[in-house]
């Protein structure tokens, strides 16, 4: 057989029918659901008198609207103060009950952001097609699964038919060669990639991330990178299977059982691009060139290194870009040539499906340990991605580090990533955020978001403005003072 990319293989393995008009019917193995994009789909099923095609492919959890304060969470759905949020979470609950779909309910220990929960449970496996009514479904591609976001009509389509009508995408390889410097994380890598190719650079492509720097990164870091493939315009991000992938999945609740494990692993080993596979486009970055990144504008491509300056519209490549920069500077309240480290912050948010896993929290805690949040800050919050991440962090004592430093320690959910619950920015406030979108108003009306890594967010919280986390030596503690 001709050599294939990972994407080609996944496509072929799920091709139900190729139609003459160029579209194809693709089989879906895993369908994740949350409360925001599913109500109209369930209603559509009901109106048409249709039933879900295959129940065990579906897994649901509420995440976008759930409050993150203990007070509101204690009473479950009934305790959600905002009425419209409560109705939406209740609707998911009702729909899951009436259609018999498995759900991790609001206060289940396994509840959390759908893209944290799926992999954590082993519900995302190599070789699967994974979809969800959420663009950050790209996250799951870190497992060599063909994963992408869909709209509500497609949620209904998958529920009813277990398939999607698709057109094959093109193949892009983004290779990061070399080794990342200390203090430079997966988040910095993906922001640097978006800075390089732009927010539309990946439109129409499935992006595979490869190269030695990616191979060195943990599963959680790979998820961070694939998560933001969509911010580069690509619905799909992928990383090939290796030992890191397989080790991560071993004994996860939804992973193959003991009898199936060997066969599954043997199958997964094929889920890499062939050595001589051809890509339609190849982009190469050097890991050594990547410094901690900070976005200064209102699009993720408006990014630079922490030691950089805010750009000048006069230096833009065309009119549309110049106008974009001018508008972004106005919205963000920044001026051309201003140093990134001079940007003062009002709030800090550590969380979201990009960076709310245990390694993210460890990374932030390492920086926060023994220090205190700057007095000038109104709020610094840490929101774990799932109940299990929260429990793990508490078992390690990370919450105590955060609380001692002056961070709030919250219940799991999307929280201030998109501010559908009570956690949001006020107008004009600057926020260092570990989430994935710095769009106007995303974190609150008039709010100003700067995307950074968890370590950079923690350092910014301590300093009150952006700082290069590499200049932040860890404070020796009893734990680290082993002779």
């Amino acid at each position, binding site marked *: 057989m001709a050599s294939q990319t990972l994407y080609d293989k996944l496509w072929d393995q799920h091709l139900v029918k190729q139609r003459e008009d160029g579209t194809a019917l693709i089989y879906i193995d895993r369908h994740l659901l949350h409360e925001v994009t599913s109500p109209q789909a369930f209603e559509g099923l009901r109106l048409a008198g249709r039933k879900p095609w295959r129940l065990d492919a579906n897994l649901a959890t509420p995440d976008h609207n759930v409050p993150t304060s203990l007070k509101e969470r204690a009473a479950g759905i009934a305790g959600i103060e905002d009425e419209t949020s409560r109705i939406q979470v209740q609707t998911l609950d009702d729909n899951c009950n009436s259609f018999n779909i498995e759900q991790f309910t609001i206060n289940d220990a396994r509840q959390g952001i759908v893209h944290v929960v799926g992999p954590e449970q082993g519900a995302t496996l190599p070789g699967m097609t994974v979809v969800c009514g959420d663009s950050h479904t790209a996250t799951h591609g870190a497992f060599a699964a063909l994963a992408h976001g869909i709209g509500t*009509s497609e949620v209904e389509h998958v529920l009813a038919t277990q398939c999607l009508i698709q057109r094959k995408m093109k193949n892009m390889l983004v290779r990061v060669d070399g080794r990342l410097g200390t203090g430079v994380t997966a988040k910095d890598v993906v922001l640097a990639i978006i800075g390089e190719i732009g927010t539309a650079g990946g439109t129409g492509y499935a992006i595979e991330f490869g190269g030695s720097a990616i191979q060195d990164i943990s599963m959680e870091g790979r998820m961070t990178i694939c998560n933001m493939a969509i911010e580069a*315009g690509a619905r799909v991000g992928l990383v090939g299977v290796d030992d890191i992938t397989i080790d991560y999945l071993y004994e996860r609740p939804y992973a193959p059982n003991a009898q199936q494990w060997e066969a599954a692993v043997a199958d997964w080993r094929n889920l890499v691009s062939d050595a001589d596979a051809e890509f339609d486009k190849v982009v190469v970055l050097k890991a050594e060139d990547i410094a901690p990144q900070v976005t200064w504008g209102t699009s993720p491509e408006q990014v630079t290194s922490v030691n950089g300056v805010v750009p000048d519209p006069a230096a833009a490549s065309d009119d549309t870009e110049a106008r974009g920069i001018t508008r972004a500077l106005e919205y963000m309240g920044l001026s051309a040539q201003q140093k990134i480290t001079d940007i003062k912050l009002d709030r800090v948010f550590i969380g979201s499906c990009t960076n709310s896993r245990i390694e993210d929290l460890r990374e932030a805690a390492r920086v926060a340990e023994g220090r205190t949040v700057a007095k000038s800050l109104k709020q610094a919050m840490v929101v774990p991605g799932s109940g299990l991440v929260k429990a793990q962090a508490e078992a390690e004592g990370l919450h105590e580090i955060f609380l001692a430093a002056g961070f709030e320690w919250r219940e799991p959910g999307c929280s201030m990533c998109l501010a559908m619950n009570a956690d949001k920015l006020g107008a004009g406030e600057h926020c260092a955020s570990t989430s994935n979108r710095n769009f106007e108003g995303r974190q609150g009306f008039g709010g100003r978001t700067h995307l950074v890594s968890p370590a950079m967010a923690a350092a910014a919280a301590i300093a009150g403005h952006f700082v290069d986390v590499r200049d932040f030596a860890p404070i020796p503690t009893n734990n680290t003072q082993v002779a």
Partner: protein
Amino acid sequence: MEKFIRQQGLVAPLDRANVDTDLIIPKQFLKSIKRTGFGPNLFDELRYLDEGYIGQDISKRPLNPDFVLNQPRYAGASVLLARRNFGCGSSREHAPWALTDFGFRVVIAPSFADIFYNNSFKNGLLLITLDEDTVDRLFKEAEAVEGYRLDIDLEAQAVITPSGESIPFEVDSFRKHCLMEGLDDIGLTLKDQDAIDSFEKRHRTERPWLFRDGKTA
């Protein structure tokens, strides 16, 4: 889904690149569990000077006089002219719902984000991709001439300007067919039920770990 065959419409130019779905319909309105009623909050943060919330009395809100859709000359527009990478960001289908609810049937831009593109066609919203120069020219014409209308002929795949110039566009045949017939694609897919069944059976035999319901093939 409402059919689209051929339609003439007033053009509103939205001169801004990377218009994301958060901008098209902000998150607070996604709390609705319906498909309709999003039109009044389309581009909410650009259209109004105050912060919008669900269930508000729209008639009392201060309009932003500078925003294009608030200008009387664009009232009733059904063709939106936009810049590159329109519809980027989240997968919310509320974005095309809001555009159609407001009255748009067509968006013309140099490029669109993938998920938004898909979602739009499923809701009777025709997206037309034209090259940057052509879009730029249409912007100039629409801004210069009050009451500027375009005739969009999906069957012939052409945008016809007031001067009679016909600009061809590409659209994939499946999407065109669905839009022209107003088809529900779930019904179409279910015609292939046998193919899905047999695929599923084979898939289950080859990779049983992907199925958790305990049934054997």
